[in-house]
């Protein structure tokens, strides 16, 4: 009995001393805050912050080079947690945004120039005469956005256009960056009225190619009680644009638009909107896949 206690104690002591000594002697400083931050990050490594993954973001937070709110999928809860670790105040209120598609020209609505055969990639399709659609501003319908979405929030609809599940969208920005036509945009969920066309061609040309194009008729402009929508110069032509500051979501322009290129939707139901700024349930499911590697 005594032997056991003594020898085990001795072994323990010897190794304890060695380790204690080594720990002192060879110490390398690591900021514990980085570790702590990494624990609470969504771990999607989506890159929406512009940094290569959550670990880099945590380091950047400690270094002070990014704001907590730069992490779009995180949401308010995360910002609070970060603030708690870093000992700072929670940054300003940010509205939840979702990615929306600014094109309605699916099959049957937009004239096609040819039948595209080849890989499902928008840029590859664009290499041939700016895509199979006669309109050069719209969705190419090859699903590059669908492929990059890390949250499974995008699916390709029957009309060839991507359909975004706004509840799943975390505004990580990946599809927005990926889209070669730049027709995906992060829009705050409280903005209900949107011009869903970026075609800057003359009204006649636009109409010839697509039944849901902005034809620069200015009806929206004339009918807007708040002076919030204007056909403004863009590219080599012009297109209708809504000033979100002035827009009151009355929906008159959407109702009057002859081609229905302006539409009004509420991307999220009311109770979800009430919790604006929270991480959507369907986003990071903390499956840990991203952390294992």
């Amino acid at each position, binding site marked *: 009995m005594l032997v056991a206690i003594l*020898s*085990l104690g001795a072994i*323990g002591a010897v190794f304890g001393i060695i380790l204690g000594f080594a720990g002192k002697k060879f110490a390398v400083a690591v900021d514990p805050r980085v570790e702590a931050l990494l624990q609470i990050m969504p771990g999607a490594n989506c890159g929406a912050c512009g940094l290569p993954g959550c670990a880099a973001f945590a380091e950047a937070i400690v270094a002070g080079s990014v704001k907590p709110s730069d992490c779009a999928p995180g949401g308010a809860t995360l910002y609070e947690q970060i603030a708690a670790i870093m000992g700072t105040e929670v940054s300003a209120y940010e509205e939840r945004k979702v990615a929306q598609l600014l094109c309605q020209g699916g099959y049957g609505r937009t004239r096609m120039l040819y039948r595209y055969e080849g890989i499902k990639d928008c840029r590859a399709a664009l290499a041939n005469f700016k895509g199979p659609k006669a309109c050069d501003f719209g969705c190419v319908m090859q699903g590059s956005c669908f492929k990059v979405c890390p949250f499974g929030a995008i699916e390709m609809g029957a009309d060839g256009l991507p359909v975004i599940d706004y509840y799943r969208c975390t505004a990580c920005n990946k599809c927005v960056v990926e889209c070669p036509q730049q027709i995906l945009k992060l829009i705050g969920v409280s903005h209900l009225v949107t011009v869903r066309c970026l075609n800057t061609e003359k009204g006649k040309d636009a109409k010839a190619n697509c039944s849901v194009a902005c034809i620069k008729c200015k009806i929206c402009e004339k009918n807007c009680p708040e002076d919030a929508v204007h056909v403004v110069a863009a590219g080599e032509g012009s297109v209708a644009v809504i000033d979100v500051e002035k827009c009151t979501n009355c929906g008159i322009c959407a109702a009057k638009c002859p081609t229905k290129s302006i539409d009004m939707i509420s991307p999220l139901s009311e109770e979800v909107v009430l919790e604006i700024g929270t991480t959507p349930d369907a986003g990071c499911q903390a499956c840990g896949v991203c952390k294992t590697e």
Partner: protein
Amino acid sequence: MQEYVIIIISAVLVNNIVLSQFLGICPFLGVSKKLSASLGMSGAVSFVLIIASFITWVLQTYLLTPLNITYLQTIAFILVIASLVQFVEIVIKKFSPPMYKALGIFLPLITTNCAVLGVAIINIQNEYSLGKVMVHSLSHAAGFTIALLLMSGIRERLEDADIPESMRGTPIALIVAALMSISFLGFSGLT
């Protein structure tokens, strides 16, 4: 000499530590997604395995057996291994940052790697001499390395495979291990 050859062949091929003894399954499944990572892991495991085998043998032969306290084997061995891992980690971190970068994240995982403790215990059970202990642990390290490298090679290829959703990740890795294990059955009876 013959004995040593048999130990080597048996440890590396016939009774491969992972594929037929089921030791070190966690890193085998967990760290085999990328070849580079598995190189690091097998390096770290081999390193600790060999040193730990040596120290535990010395401990057993000169302390536990003479004092007649062999029932403390498990505690003593795990203490040795845990301290060793931590010690190695501290030392590498200090003296070879690149090596720490490569091996560092794997080192803490090794404490709870049954391969190390398992081999140490098998060494004692088989009543090997020091020479055989070293050969034995070296061959098991080699067996582990080979299994891990082959596994990661396969899994890198599987990255592009269209595996059914529910089989992705660990399930398919286990199936690969199963089929590897079936292939290694070919070595059974090898003398």
